[in-house]
């Protein structure tokens, strides 16, 4: 690190991303609590384990190849070859991917992206609870977390990505690159996986499967909100000089930027995060007629809808866009459920997938003509680019890969658990052992008490 200002900027930036990573961990805690709260008692431990093991599996694969994809794929395959030069420093055997006093930032930057990977995989995990094999879900987790989402990030969430350059794609806080793709992926999987036993009556009417523990669900979603703060901060570059950006910005004013190195402020995203949360909660309360869980989820869906443009929107725009998105998401979820008999157990396809898709489309109109990048020659933000981007995220990189892999798993019989096991519960063996152990120790204690009682007399 040469020069004190450079050193301070580097230290501040690495600490900034490090803090966002810690915050984002709460998203995963929240997802785990939400899933366990939504599942029935006979599946709790399996549901929890299914989500927890996403952490190590996505982490190691993101180290082995996910991070390299981000740097090598921005223009691959149709707009140029692999960027092997940028990718080289991010290969798992590069000395920058380790303890290195000459590189103090790669690890925390890698981790900030990695936490997004966990989120993408965890979104899919929620929609398939109580009937998927863990082994099947964990392959999906690796694919969405360390392959598909990071390809979309290279294309549309990188300052040099072809979607940004050619389409003017703009997705500052990941409406599409995390939420639409993960929701689309989940939709592909549940189409093949099928609904839980009893979800639909014989005449096709959907049954509500209420959460086992509504309070766990509530705390879960509030932790997701909390982690989302870290997620938003992690999407920004906290401070950078125009000289370092080396684009068209003139003057010497340092700024925070979005991932595309276009200017924004932490103040802007704080306004917009809270206003879109509020718009989502209010709309969801009205449209669901006060249903607690749809209202809570609506807050999340509101943020997700506004996220594509929350670096630039006015707070009232963020609120209204969030509210519009939530109404569409709510209606679409119930229409799809009835029409296609799909069991999206926690509403993940709707809250993440549909909200992300709708958010991208709306931002194309509201931000029409705004520069997508500080660099010369990039397309400006426009509706065609955003709609094309939404289709790429939700269908091409999300739905299609999820559906194809699930089809293969289903064909060889390794996707879904046997019907008998689904009915008795995935934790049956553990419950059985627990009840037997409990009965045995109670009997032993009673026997001991009786013996002592006899002795005392």
């Amino acid at each position: 690190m040469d020069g004190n200002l450079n050193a301070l900027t580097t230290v501040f930036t690495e600490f900034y991303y490090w803090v966002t990573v810690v915050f984002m961990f709460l998203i995963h805690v929240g997802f785990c609590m939400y899933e366990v709260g939504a599942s029935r008692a006979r599946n709790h431990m399996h549901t929890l384990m299914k989500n927890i093991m996403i952490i190590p599996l996505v982490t190691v694969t993101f180290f082995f190849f996910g991070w390299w994809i981000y740097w090598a794929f921005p223009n691959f395959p149709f707009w140029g070859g692999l960027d092997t030069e940028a990718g080289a420093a991010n290969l798992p055997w590069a000395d920058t991917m380790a303890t290195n006093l000459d590189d103090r930032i790669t690890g925390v930057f890698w981790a900030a992206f990695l936490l997004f990977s966990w989120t993408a995989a965890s979104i899919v995990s929620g929609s398939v609870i109580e009937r998927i094999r863990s082994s099947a879900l964990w392959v999906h987790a690796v694919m969405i977390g360390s392959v598909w989402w990071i390809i979309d990030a290279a294309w549309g969430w990188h300052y040099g990505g072809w979607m940004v350059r050619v389409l003017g794609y703009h997705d500052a806080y990941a409406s599409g690159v995390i939420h639409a793709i993960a929701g689309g992926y989940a939709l592909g999987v549940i189409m093949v996986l099928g609904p839980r036993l009893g979800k639909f009556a014989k005449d096709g009417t959907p049954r509500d499967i209420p959460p086992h523990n509504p309070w766990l669900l509530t705390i879960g979603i509030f932790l997701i909100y909390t982690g989302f703060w870290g997620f938003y901060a992690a999407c920004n570059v906290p401070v950078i000089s125009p000289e370092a950006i080396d684009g068209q910005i003139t003057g010497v004013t340092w700024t925070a930027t979005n991932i595309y190195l276009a200017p924004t402020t932490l103040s802007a995203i704080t306004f917009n995060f809270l206003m879109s949360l509020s718009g989502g909660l209010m709309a969801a309360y009205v449209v669901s007629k006060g249903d607690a869980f749809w209202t809570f989820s609506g807050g999340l869906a509101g943020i997700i809808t506004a996220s594509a443009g929350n670096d630039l929107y006015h707070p009232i725009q963020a609120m209204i866009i969030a509210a519009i998105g939530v109404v569409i998401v709510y209606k679409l979820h119930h229409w799809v459920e009835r029409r296609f008999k799909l069991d999206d157990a926690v509403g993940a396809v709707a809250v993440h997938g549909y909200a992300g898709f709708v958010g991208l489309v709306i931002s194309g109109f509201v931000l029409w003509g705004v520069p997508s990048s500080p660099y010369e020659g990039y397309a400006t933000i426009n509706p065609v680019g955003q709609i094309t981007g939404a289709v790429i995220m939700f269908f091409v990189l999300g739905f299609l890969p999820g559906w194809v892999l699930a089809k293969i798993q289903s064909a060889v019989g390794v996707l879904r658990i046997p019907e008998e096991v689904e009915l008795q519960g995935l934790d049956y063996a553990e419950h059985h052992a627990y009840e037997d152990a409990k009965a045995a120790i109670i009997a032993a204690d009673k026997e001991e008490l009786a013996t002592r009682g006899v002795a005392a007399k």
Partner: protein
Amino acid sequence: MSTNGYTSWAVDLAEVGPVYPFQGYEVLMVIIGVAFWIGWHRIQFVREGEHLEKARHTGDEEKVKIQLERY
């Protein structure tokens, strides 16, 4: 002798890069890491298949009913 090439920190940090042990064996470490990851999937896949097959035949109807009632 030192596994990371340094036996003292009496150095100019501007001249210091990697400090992890066994530098030069990074590719071998990646191969071991990938084998560990793939091996884990294999072990888990086989065990889960056996567990589910066994579980299909172990459900006691009365106990299952109790579980269903517990929700």
